[in-house]
């Protein structure tokens, strides 16, 4: 009998493998000949089967046996990957997940899957073997590339565009640390390219680096037995297979999320204590104390960066789920759907990423069900038969923008309007603008579909989406172009637990402005010093920037002195100047959420504790910019 701990270990490992298997299978669908992926799938299956047998789960091991054989065949080139194989494999992956969850005894469907596999293997496509071989490239760009402003990453990107499969950095020429000149490029790369790429195309990549370039090219012809292809160029790296993909190459640890939260809390307190220490040390004037305090400061700030980077998760980590969802939806709705993603490396705090999953799934489901038309309808309109749902993520100032767009029919304005009037959300005969109208989609229970499908149409979902995003202090925008599709953009603050802040003072009260949002700081012209004097715009290098007086926004007592400063902040909405009495300096800001008692106060995104122990509020830049815009609109109308 296996003890609980061992079983838990097995289960956690198996879950990891199942996850990676799914991700690989879905990618394999788009790149069915990618050898690395095929190897990866085989490895996952093999390990899953092996550890299943070892931990007494013979049901899992037995079930996976045929799949392992199938991918063995694919690996050796005697069988090719096609959609059907992927479908069957995904079904098998689900079955294993079910077996794992049920602790045995969930045997239904097993036979069907295996029969389907057997039938497919008999009649399936055989790899044509017309492999054109592949290029092996080894190159060292000229050492002065970086000094001259060259971009090795662009060269690598170009190679990737040509279809590079394996890329490896060659680090044998990196000198000892003492002799390392950071401006010299010591790295080389080894890249495998498909044999179909012409030599000229490859040379073209290095067009701008010819002086001093070292480039070796060699074409490995496809041998008779494709199975040995892999063994030729990379034979010596075989033992540590992981070198090619970071996932298995580095030692990874699974850590309960709450430990990371605890750690972040501690680091937050450390940073606050450190700020106090620095202040006390500075006042004491004792050089020994100052030196220690500075050491502590350096350590605390490194600790902060490390802890934060641990918590940062690329949005790509949840992309697998959307690919799978799109795949399943495509199957269920009987219309081809492609899911694409850009900016998957955009990182967000892990809690934000986790909480985003549900809302994004809802939006994808809606897009597939309501947005994308059936294939015939699309063809009739001259669109490609396959509908596309695209997820893009990017940074914008101190925010992250995540958009989901589809190329479907767009949102039916009239239907939304009619439904809103019917439900009393709009007065009869109202002609609202797009923003107001599309906002109604997020009302609880709102749906324009009369029939309820098992996917969407019940009107639950979009209100949940809005609530979750608002909880994360984000906003939602909807754009739609009839016949061309709709885009839903989620705008999220980078709610990190610690940010770099700019500490400013107004009427003896100190506030923090997130430094990432600060563009520049200028002096307020004397002509505008007094309230009500002049207009509400600053002329900064020939562009008009509206400005707000912090005194006025915060209802501060007293009169402003001379030499007020304007902090120009930016968000994707635009720029606005904030007039403050004095700039104090930069400040490591540990964000403390405001209590629910202050949920009604929108001007601040949180609070922090300063070095002297007082509490200071963090200004919400997005809110300020919005206000600045409204103001400048009003100003223009009045002018």
């Amino acid at each position, binding site marked *: 009998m296996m003890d609980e701990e061992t079983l838990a270990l097995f289960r956690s490992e198996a879950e990891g493998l199942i996850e990676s298997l799914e991700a690989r299978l879905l990618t394999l669908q788009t790149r069915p000949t990618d050898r690395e992926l095929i190897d990866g799938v085989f490895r996952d299956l093999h390990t899953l089967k092996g550890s299943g047998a070892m931990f007494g789960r013979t049901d899992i091991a037995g079930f996976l046996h045929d799949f392992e054989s199938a991918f063995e065949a694919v690996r050796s080139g005697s069988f090719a990957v096609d959609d059907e194989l992927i479908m069957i494999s995904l079904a098998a992956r689900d079955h294993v997940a079910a077996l794992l969850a049920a602790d045995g005894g969930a045997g239904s469907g097993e036979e069907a899957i295996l029969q389907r596999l057997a039938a497919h293997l008999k009649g399936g496509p055989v790899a044509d073997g017309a492999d054109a071989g592949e290029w092996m490239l080894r190159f060292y760009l000229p050492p002065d590339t970086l000094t001259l402003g060259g971009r090795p990453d662009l060269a690598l990107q170009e190679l990737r565009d040509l279809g590079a499969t394996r890329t490896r950095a060659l680090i044998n020429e990196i000198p000892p640390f003492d002799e390392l000149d950071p401006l010299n490029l010591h790295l080389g790369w080894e890249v495998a390219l498909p044999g179909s790429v012409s030599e000229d195309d490859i040379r073209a990549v290095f067009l701008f680096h010819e002086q001093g370039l070292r480039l070796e090219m060699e074409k490995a012809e496809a041998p008779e037995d494709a199975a040995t292809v892999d063994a030729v160029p990379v034979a010596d790296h075989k033992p540590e297979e992981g070198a090619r993909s970071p996932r298995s190459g580095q030692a990874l640890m699974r850590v309960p999320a709450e430990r990371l939260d605890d750690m972040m809390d501690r680091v*937050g*307190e450390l940073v*606050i*204590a450190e700020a106090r220490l620095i202040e006390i040390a500075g006042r004491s004037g004792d050089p020994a104390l100052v030196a220690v305090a500075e050491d502590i400061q350096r350590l605390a700030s490194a600790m902060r960066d490390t802890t934060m980077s641990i918590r940062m998760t690329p949005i790509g980590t949840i992309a697998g789920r959307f690919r799978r969802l799109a795949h399943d939806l495509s199957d269920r709705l009987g219309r081809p759907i492609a899911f694409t993603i850009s900016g998957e490396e955009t990182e967000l705090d892990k809690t934000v990423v986790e909480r985003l999953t549900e809302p994004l799934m809802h939006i994808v489901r809606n897009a597939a069900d309501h947005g994308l038309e059936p294939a015939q309808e699309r063809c009739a309109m001259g669109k490609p038969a396959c509908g596309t749902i695209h997820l893009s993520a990017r940074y914008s100032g101190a925010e992250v923008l995540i958009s989901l767009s589809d190329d479907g029919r767009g949102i039916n304005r009239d239907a939304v309007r009619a439904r809103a009037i019917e439900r009393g959300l709009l007065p009869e005969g109202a002609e609202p603008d797009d923003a107001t109208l599309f906002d109604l989609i997020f009302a609880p229970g709102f749906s324009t579909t009369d029939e309820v499908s098992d996917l969407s149409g019940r009107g639950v979902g979009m209100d949940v989406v809005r609530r979750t995003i608002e909880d994360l202090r984000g906003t939602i925008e909807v754009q739609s172009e009839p016949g061309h599709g709709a885009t839903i953009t989620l705008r999220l603050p980078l709610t990190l637990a610690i940010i770099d802040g700019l500490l400013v003072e107004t009427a003896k*009260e100190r506030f923090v402005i997130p430094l990432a949002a600060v563009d520049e700081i200028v002096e307020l012209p004397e002509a505008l010093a007094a*309230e*009500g004097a002049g*207009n*509400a715009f600053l002329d900064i290098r020939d562009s008009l920037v509206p400005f*707000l*007086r912090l005194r*006025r*926004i*915060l*209802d*501060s007592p007293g009169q402003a002195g001379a030499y007020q400063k304007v902090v120009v902040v930016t968000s994707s909405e635009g720029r606005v100047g904030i007039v403050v009495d004095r700039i104090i300096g930069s400040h490591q800001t540990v964000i*403390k959420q*405001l*209590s*629910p*008692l*202050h*949920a*009604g*106060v*929108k*001007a*601040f995104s949180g*609070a*922090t*504790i300063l070095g*002297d*122990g*007082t*509490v*200071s*509020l963090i200004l919400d830049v997005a*809110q300020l910019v919005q*206000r600045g815009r*409204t*103001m400048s609109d*009003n*100003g223009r109308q*009045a*002018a």
Partner: protein
Amino acid sequence: MTLRKDATTTDVVTFRLSGEVLAVPASLLREVLEPVDIARVPGAPEFVSSLINVRGTVVPLADLRVPLRMPRDEIGAGARIMVLDLPLEGQDAVVGIYADSVHEVTRLDAATMEAIPTVGSRWPPRFVAYVGRWSGAFVTIPDLPTIFADYLASQQSRPSSGASGAITQSEAEPV
């Protein structure tokens, strides 16, 4: 956490606020602080108009005189801040409240506690849990959960657009 009628005795902390003796259950009290630097929250309602730093956490400071409709004189130098563990919206939370002075932890006999008389009291009745007797004087036990729940509910019913309080007014400069 509220006082229960079936309990025979309850430990409370008595304190003085605006000339009255009040008490809160001793189990809620975390610590009593000397006056500290307080940070104003511009635009926040008077009930919770500021924040304080309690050992590295930011804690809202509430003024019970607002819901209890007591006269609000200047807070004196001898004033104290009582830091309480008080769940808000079902979540653990810490809240500070003002007290002119804090007396002692004492045991109130349930037999002496009664609901507030509906007539002849200047307190809003729904905000008072019980009235007890202590050293021959009346002691009022405010119903903190109701006071805070009412306040939160009133916040939610406020229009969410257009920011809040002092900052709803257009701060546009006259053009």
